[in-house]
């Protein structure tokens, strides 16, 4: 039905429209380094993905992960070299050798043999304090092949006063499937918000996740993470959340970047984690 709507304005155009190469200079840009790195004090591995952007106009380049980049993370009055791990297509370092600390600023510097280099700075926020959460799980419907239900997570925490704060709440279904020997983790969306109109207060929110479980499978728990992100962390996730691709009737979304001389994101968050067993 919606397709018919999109089609309507084109009905008229179809009779007269004519296509040709545009008679205007297109923006000529060179490939740029793309950094994709999030750091948190909780992660056991510091991980960065490095690639190149593909200019829209011009010849096709390899925009897969780069393997020959030099990636250095500076901070804590020290630095660490991240090395390439082909299994994850990422540059990695163990957090045990280079801890990420709340309140500290970090600087990532990337260069590749062709001479391109890019860098970005980010500051790690403090962790949410006095975080409490509860789950109310109910089965709403049952049928011969399984059952459906909803898990409502209610949580609250203290927001630091006198500053703008950004939060991202990320829930997971921890489930067991009869055909698999591993427990699987499935992310079920996220919620992004700020402390606008609630600065310095105790913020209370809830999130309801809906599920369907086939007979023989089970959902063991709901894991939740509340990430206290910085502006970079929030803005980036907000922009990809808004990203609507090529919908011609939507406003184009500018993807947030804080990378100098390149694209992508280097952002930090500090989180808390809870597991709610069913």
């Amino acid at each position, binding site marked *: 039905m919606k397709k018919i709507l999109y089609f309507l304005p084109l009905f008229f155009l179809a009779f007269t429209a*004519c296509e040709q190469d545009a008679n205007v200079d297109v923006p000529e*840009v060179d490939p740029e380094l793309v950094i994709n790195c999030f750091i948190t004090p909780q*992660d*056991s591995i510091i991980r960065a993905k490095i690639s190149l952007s593909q200019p829209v106009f011009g010849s096709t380049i390899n925009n897969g992960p780069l393997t020959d980049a030099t990636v250095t993370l500076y901070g804590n009055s020290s630095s660490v070299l991240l090395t390439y791990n082909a299994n994850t297509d990422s540059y990695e370092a163990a957090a045990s050798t280079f801890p990420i600390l709340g309140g500290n600023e970090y600087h990532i510097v990337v260069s590749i043999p062709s001479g391109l280099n890019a860098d970005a700075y980010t500051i790690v926020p403090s962790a949410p304090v006095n975080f409490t959460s509860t789950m109310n799980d109910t089965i709403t419907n049952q049928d011969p092949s399984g059952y459906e239900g909803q898990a409502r997570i209610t949580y609250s925490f203290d927001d630091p006063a006198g500053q703008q704060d950004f939060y991202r709440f990320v829930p997971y279904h921890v489930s067991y499937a009869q055909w698999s020997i591993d427990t699987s983790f499935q992310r079920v969306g996220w919620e992004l918000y700020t402390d606008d109109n609630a600065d310095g207060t105790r913020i209370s929110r809830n999130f309801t996740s809906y599920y369907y479980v086939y007979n023989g499978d089970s959902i063991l728990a709901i894991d939740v*993470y509340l990430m206290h992100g910085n502006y970079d962390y929030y803005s980036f996730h907000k922009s990809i959340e808004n990203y*609507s691709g090529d919908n011609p*009737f939507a406003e184009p979304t*500018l993807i947030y970047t804080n990378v100098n001389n390149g694209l992508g994101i280097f952002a930090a968050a500090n989180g808390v984690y809870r597991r709610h067993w069913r």
Partner: protein
Amino acid sequence: MSRILSSLILLLSAITLSAQTKYTISGYVREKSSQESLPGVAVVNLKTKSGTVTNNYGFYSLTIPADSIDLFVTYVGYQPYKAKFVLTKDTTITIELGVVELNTVVITDEQTERVSDGTQMSTVSIPIEQIKAIPALLGEKDVLKVVQLMPGVHAGNEGSSGFYVRGGGADQNLIILDDATVYNAYHLFGFFSVFNGDALKSVELTKGGFPARYGGRLSSVLEMQMKEGNKQEFHGEAGIGIISSRLTLEGPIIKGKSSFLVSGRRTYIDALIYPFLPPDQKFGYFFHDFNAKVNYDVNENNRLYLSGYFGKDKFYAKFNGGPGGASDKASMDWGNATATLRWNHLWTDKLFSNTSFIFTNYTLGIGYEEHYQNDDFTLKYSSGIRDFSLKHDFDFAPSPDHFIKFGVVSTYHRFNPSAIVVRSSYAPDNMLKQKILEAYESGIYIEDDWRLTDRLKINLGFRLSHFNTQKKHYFRPEPRVAARFMLDENSSLKACFTIMNQYLHLLSNTGVGLPTDLWVPATANVAPQQSWQVAMGYARDIPKYKLMVTAEAYYKQSSDVLGYKDGASFLLVGDFEEGSEISWEKNVTSGTGESYGFELLVQRKVGKFTGWVGYTLSWTWLQFDSINFGKKYYARQDRRNDISVVGIYNLSDNITISATWVFGTGAAITLPQAEYSVVDHDPASGQQVLPQNNWQWFVSDYGEKNSFRMEAYHRMDVGVQFRKQMKHWERTFEVSFYNLYNHKNPFFYYIGYNNSGTERRLKQVSLFPIIPSVSWTIKF
């Protein structure tokens, strides 16, 4: 003794001078043959150079000292009226002006219209005859497209009737037809306007220096008056063009006292293609509009007018004979209806009032029906806005130095952002969702056009506007000031300052006038838009060449203008398959706008050769905290240079040729420059070293918002009209060419590939190549 006597005479004469008796000349100015009242006619006493203009109903009132009078009444396209007499009492004169026959040399040194005299600036009025002579796309004469040819105004997209004034949005124009607001002024997805030139008497666009009687929009007021109909004789006009036919009839109901006018237009492509479509697949599109007006002169002091406009567009598609008897049907229709009942009352020869009761309604409907075996599914979506207004305006002319207008208007708005009805045989529950929003908008105003000295005249005005919705009240004062200083007989300096408020917002993704564009009220969360504007100008009349020249510079700042958050889409405010409602308030954001520029207009309205040259140099910026990461950027409608040239030449009594040429800097748009992939942060995989659960996003790098310029737009249209007087009627045959030199103006860009499919290219879609059209009109 003689000394005393002469002193006494001197004293007496001084008293008589200061307490000089004044009388009022008042009445109506009408067109001689049809008795149609004429608005905007200059009525001047040449002796004192004091004067006035007729109001929208053709009424004038001039109070002047008892003396000999040299009355001069002029209007574009009409023979001027002259009368010399001695004013000894209050006098009522109904003035009848005859049309100037083509190629008749007007025997007067006076120019028929002057730009240097009035305090009002930033205003253009366009004679209907010029609108009818200017070549148009597919021969459909379009008021809004002629308005777009004025400096400070430009079109949004190729072929679109939507217009932008002094950097303001397409939603910031108040379009009124006989006092009724027309909410969606476009047919056929914006390619044609709903106004039928045959039914119109006057068109006036105000871009700045708004008099206090206008309010409710930030950027412009386009006021149109429908013709009243000939009070003496029955007349008609019929035309056949490429896409539509039209018919206008007018005539007396009671001769000299009451008349009617009806005018209709309909497209016929659907009727032509219908027989050629397979019986199981039918689709089509049409639009029609209908104007009607009746008026009745109750007596000398009371007149009644009833006018209405009804227009509709409809697109439909039907498919039958699918497997299992499957069939489906889809349709989309939209249209405006307006009705205005007006009562003119003359309280005294100095005080005139008009009371209007106004109704306006815009609706969009989408219907879908599906039938398969025994299952039926029906869905109906509708949205719209409906207004009822009461307006009471007074014109008071106590002396030649003061012309006072005051009044009050109150409107009840009823918004229906979306109503959904779903009936399905799968689900027994029928779904009905509707949320009506109500709002009250009012304004009270007073303005005085005050002649301080022979050289200096000011228009002081004040409007207090009020808007009430969802228990929220907005009261906004709106001061208006305009001044004119005559430098010499034919030239003046002008300046103005205005504050405007807009309490209605248009949600639109394209700005081209799609029927899905939706009006919503300001709310407690989304504040009304506000702007202030200052303009300064120079106006000069050159009677020798009958030229009017205006040069103006303006600066406009707007606050709380509406912007759409990244990724927002308002194709429909509601997902009707889900029955859910998209909260538009969450998808919009408020910011500021800034525009400034310079406009030059050289216009000639009378003579064998008429037309104008307009030039605009302008800048338009927008800034929103949550768009473009807070940095200010060029609005899409930012246009550095804009030129329009319009020429109409009466080659002979029977042949008129006309041409227009337009040039405009390309629109500022956002274009992808590069693509790359990113992942979001997955807290679980980092903390517990789980398999990565993050999602990969393939995104575009656009650079800064609206940092790319489309190709400059330019186009030339030409037309020629051949007229011939037949026995019972006059026929006009017109041939015209839209886009004469076939310049492929981009409508939109997309990213495609070269012929071998190896390299991406920026491709453009252009709509209208050279388009010849013919039309045939008879007037009887």
